């Protein structure tokens, strides 16, 4: 056997398990969803037929898709900048060698331990107009009909739950970023007479650049893929005001719930939207690996 082929049998054996799983549950379903997405199905979901590819355009132009797309983008715009800012705030606050700091770091990281179901049910309870503490304190809309049941506040309320749940992740990542900033940079800034705010804006923020890019991209991509929050907190309502793209595909109250063709079409469009984000995500990955830890 030639040198070139000598390792090939072992390589096949080593790669086969991963390739089988990734092929069957990532690549095949993507291809099949693309195919399903162009089929027109009957109103009850059966009797699907190929009929050109214009269903994608129809779906993209439909009011339902446009609304879900807009909900998803607004959800990301509500959660990502605030989540990043709070994460930076907590990390800077905890970035001192003080007695007891380990305890505070554990507390600030703690929300990373909550799953989407746990976090959502917590906030469902807090905001519940009949038993929730927060609903009592806020009063007004929060009491009747409830922040999650009012069209103008529902998305905000879901965003608050999501920001809280992601805070631990952002805190941990930004803290690690802060710890990799060389101390002498701060010292020379101090010697140059830079005050606390100057050191923060001229040393901390620029040095955190790659970390913030990474955290921002991960948070954005999570926001676009959020599903459980909407399912548990609002069920996509009221009146579609929290029907995100994922909820439009999988939600119990979605109008395309029983139509495989339309579900697949929206899922493929979701993939295309996320493709742009994923490219950024992998760039971020390469960067981190490149700089090492």
């Amino acid at each position, binding site marked *: 056997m030639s040198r070139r082929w000598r390792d090939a049998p072992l390589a096949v054996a080593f790669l086969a398990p991963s390739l089988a799983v990734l092929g069957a549950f990532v690549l095949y379903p993507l291809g099949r969803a693309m195919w399903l997405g162009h089929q027109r199905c009957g109103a009850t979901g059966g009797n699907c037929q190929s009929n050109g590819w214009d269903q994608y355009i129809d779906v993209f132009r439909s009011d339902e898709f446009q609304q879900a797309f807009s909900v998803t983008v607004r959800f990301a715009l509500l959660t990502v900048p605030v989540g990043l800012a709070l994460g930076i705030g907590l990390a800077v606050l905890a970035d001192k*060698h003080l007695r007891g700091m380990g305890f505070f770091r554990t507390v600030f990281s703690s929300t990373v331990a909550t799953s989407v179901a746990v976090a959502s049910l917590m906030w469902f309870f807090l905001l519940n107009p009949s038993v929730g503490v927060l609903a009592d304190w806020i009063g007004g809309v929060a009491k009747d009909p409830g922040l999650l049941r009012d069209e103008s506040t529902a998305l905000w309320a879901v965003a608050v739950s999501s920001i809280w749940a992601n805070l631990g992740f952002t805190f941990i990542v930004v803290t690690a970023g802060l710890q990799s900033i060389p101390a002498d940079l701060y010292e020379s800034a101090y010697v140059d007479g830079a005050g606390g705010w100057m050191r923060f804006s001229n040393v901390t923020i620029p040095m955190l650049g790659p970390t913030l890019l990474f955290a921002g991209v991960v948070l954005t991509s999570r926001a676009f893929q959020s599903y459980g929050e909407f399912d548990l907190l609002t069920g996509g309502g009221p009146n579609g005001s929290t029907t995100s793209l994922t909820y439009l595909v999988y939600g119990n109250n979605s109008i395309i719930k029983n139509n495989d063709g339309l579900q697949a079409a929206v899922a493929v469009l979701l993939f295309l939207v996320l493709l742009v984000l994923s490219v950024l995500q992998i760039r971020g990955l390469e960067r981190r690996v490149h700089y090492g830890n």
Partner: protein
Amino acid sequence: MATSTQPHGWRLAGRYALLIGVAVLVLFPIWVMVVGAFKPGNKVLQDPLLPTSVTLDTLRQAWRDGNLGRSLVNSTVVALLVTVAQVVTSVLSAYAFAFLKFPGRTFVFGVFLATLLVPFEATVVVNRETIQDLGWLNSFQGLAVPFLATAFGTFLVRQVFLQLPKDLREAARMDGLGHLGFLREVAVPLARPTLGALALFGFLSSWNQYLWPTVISTDDDWDTVQSGLRTLSQAQIDKPNLVIAGTVIVALPIFLILLVFQRQLVRGLTAGAVKG
């Protein structure tokens, strides 16, 4: 690195006051839940911030009515399967990409990377169909099999393997170690910290899956803790204290695990654990 100037006196007190205030805010939702979980059903509306009346009955009833024992077993089995399988498949494929020479290596690696571009949420419609055709709805296989391998894990372990000194493989070959021996006795032990982080991550992401079990487990006996909470919250919509108690029961194991494995968690998150 922490900044070199340390606060003193009033500034130090102010810093602690701020830290404590923020900690209270972050913990507030958790505190309210825990207090609620220990309240008897008829007292859940009184003093929501203070444990004025304490009972284990609510937790017991949530455990029973929510079928949470069964859900915990399901989640544990599935998460362990996924964890072990992800570590094994990632090590094997990473080894192939890092140490084996074979035609088409770059192309196959490209295929692996391409799978990172596909969000799981976009494939659930078809994956559900596949699982149904296999007869795996409501089963451990159905819940676990799609997650037994990840390109992310392969990518992470490959990076570690590539950073091992080249002479190591040569020296091992001189000692008569073949690929299998080198993998078992040199490569895997040296990659252990990364494998720990990968394992913790596989476990957490499997444990926290929400959409997939709600789609695959149509029978309550096959709920994981996450889809089980959904079932509980829908069945007991008029008994919020049961839902709260169930949520606390489900949250507890992960809090404990993360307290123990904080270091691995930080390593995993900062290595770019993007596939949440």
